[in-house]
């Protein structure tokens, strides 16, 4: 288990002692429903979150599922960590209803407009605060789609990063993942504590059971703000962002697709088309 007081970001595992159940923390993000039309607010060029339904980032559902499976196999415990406004409570509750044990919610008005750099700083501080053996998250969020947070977070915490995992095995001391690549997969092994980001191939997220839904409200959710994490408001949010949105345009209508007519060569043409886009 990582010693919580460790402020330099270096993680010290005491798992070797073997006395503690594995502590898994899953970072989840609340995002606008991918089904709904998204828009930026003209005032500050941030996403208009009120105009859309908010849901758990789909990729994070896979991370939650993997955390639950690992915890079931190793007798571990799953904590959900979410940074985001009040309404993020719904997403936390969903993870709890799937079976996570407890949650940590970082809420602070100053966080509005945080970029990946700031987000990773906040999550890192929160992770140090709760302690962990393993951090799991989705490999990207469906709204910003930068895929930056897993790597930044691992750097900040000085953890080995095992990204794009399509399979995870751990004995509680070491962790081995199949890392999805263009050519197939690599097998990567690290010692715990470590950080793993997952891809959709890894599992099939469960639906919450009725009992899980009824139990979720009774599970502990701790709320923290920036001062609890000893972070400065100027380092985060729009104020501390390293990137800024200057302008935006509506996505142009999709160009007409390429029509393949099968006149004996259809199969070949399809494969050539897919290969041209590196899809096969």
């Amino acid at each position: 288990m990582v010693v919580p007081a460790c402020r330099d970001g270096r993680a010290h595992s005491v798992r070797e002692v073997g006395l503690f159940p594995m502590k898994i923390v899953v970072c989840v993000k609340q995002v606008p429903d991918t089904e709904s039309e998204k828009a930026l607010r003209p005032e500050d060029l941030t996403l208009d979150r009120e105009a859309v339904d908010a849901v758990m980032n789909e990729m994070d559902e896979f991370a939650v599922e993997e955390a639950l499976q690992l915890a079931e196999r190793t007798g571990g415990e799953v904590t959900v960590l979410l940074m985001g406004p009040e309404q993020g409570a719904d997403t936390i509750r969903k993870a709890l209803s799937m079976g996570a044990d407890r949650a940590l919610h970082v809420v602070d008005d100053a966080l509005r407009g945080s970029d990946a750099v700031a987000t990773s700083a906040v999550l890192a501080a929160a992770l140090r605060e709760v302690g962990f053996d393993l951090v799991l998250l989705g490999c990207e969020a469906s709204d910003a789609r930068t895929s930056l947070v897993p790597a930044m977070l691992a750097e900040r915490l000085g953890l080995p990063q095992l990204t794009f995992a399509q399979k995870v095995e751990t004995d509680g001391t070491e962790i081995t993942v199949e890392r999805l690549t263009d050519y197939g997969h690599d097998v990567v092994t690290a010692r715990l504590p470590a950080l793993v980001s997952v891809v959709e191939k890894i599992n099939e997220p469960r639906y919450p059971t009725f009992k899980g839904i009824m139990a979720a409200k009774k599970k502990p959710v701790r709320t923290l703000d920036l001062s609890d994490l000893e972070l400065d408001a100027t380092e985060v949010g729009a104020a501390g962002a390293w990137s800024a949105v200057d302008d935006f345009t509506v996505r142009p209508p999709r160009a007409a697709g390429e029509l393949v007519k099968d006149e004996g060569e259809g199969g070949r043409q399809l494969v050539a088309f897919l290969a041209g886009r590196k899809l096969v």
Partner: protein
Amino acid sequence: MSTHPMDTVFVESEEHRALRRAVGDLGRRFGPDYYLTAARTGGRTEELWREAGKLGYLGVNIPREYGGGGSGITELTIVLEELGSVGCPLLMLVVSPAICGSVITRFGTEAQRRRWLPGLADGTRLMAFGITEPDAGSNAHRLTTVARRDGDDWVLTGRKVFVSGVDAADAVLIVGRVADTGGESPQAGRGARLRPALFVVPRDAPGFEYRPIPMELTAPERQFQLFLDEVRLPADALVGDAGAGLGPLFAGLNPERIMAAAFSVGMGRYALRRAVEYARTRQVWDTPIGAHQAVAHPLAQCGIELELARLMTRKAAYLYDAGDDAGAGEAANMAKYAAAEAAVRTVDQAVHTLGGNGLSAEYGVGALLVGSRAARVAPVSREMILNYVAQHTLGLPKSY
């Protein structure tokens, strides 16, 4: 169940919203194509049923000690409505956990509860419900299926029609009648005092036969004619003792009406969404047809009527779950009426909104036409509800 009435009826609790979302997500994974394919090819929606059962959605109203969710009909209406709203309703929810589950929970012996409730709760067992007879639909006083005592056994003879889901069921809860006093000849007809009594009849019982009735509905659940020819049942096939009177029967009828209302609301919401999606993008002249008030206003009206029906359904479910059977009776009738009428109008309007596509197999909206009409006649017809309200609520004299 929430502790404050306002929470339960007007504002949904967090758990209820989470349940809606979870059930909707599961339903969307299967979706209308799954449902329609099963309906059109003589299949069943078993995979969805099984999955929903494993997740505890089918047995939310069954007590916890018998493997259920320990909540009520309120939660079960949420499950049915949400599945319907994404185009794959499970009709047997109305029957198996709602009617049979409620009757056995409230009037079954401990042994009957242990035998049936866990399976009804997790969906591994299914029980159909048979009350309607060729000459006794709206008028249940005319029931002629009769049970005669023979030693410890019961011997059941009669006929039932339109019983849903018998092919998939392990047993059918049959409403028959028994003689009031031991001495009287248990024959149907004038003079004999015969009380309704409910029997669990296993589908494979000797003398029990079932035949499908060809229906015009596009649904995976089929309706059957039942022939009971001297079906011999053990003493404990009877649910509630022979003197229990109408109690056991009525314990099932309120949940049935409330769930029928949820079925219609779900179907209506699905049809409305399909119509709105279509009207938003379909352009006949320069604007989407949804901009024309001739298209928009009827859809808005449907939205209002569905929401009102839904509210009444929640009220009925709330009263039932709170143990107010009498209050629930009136509300359940009103909810069932309002929901069926709203669904009939919404499906009709949706079909029309889609123009020719509304009647095509591809869009699957026309497929709802007969189903929406079925809810106007079953489980209790529009007129019988109007009779009830006229007499009981308004105090008008009876015509029949």
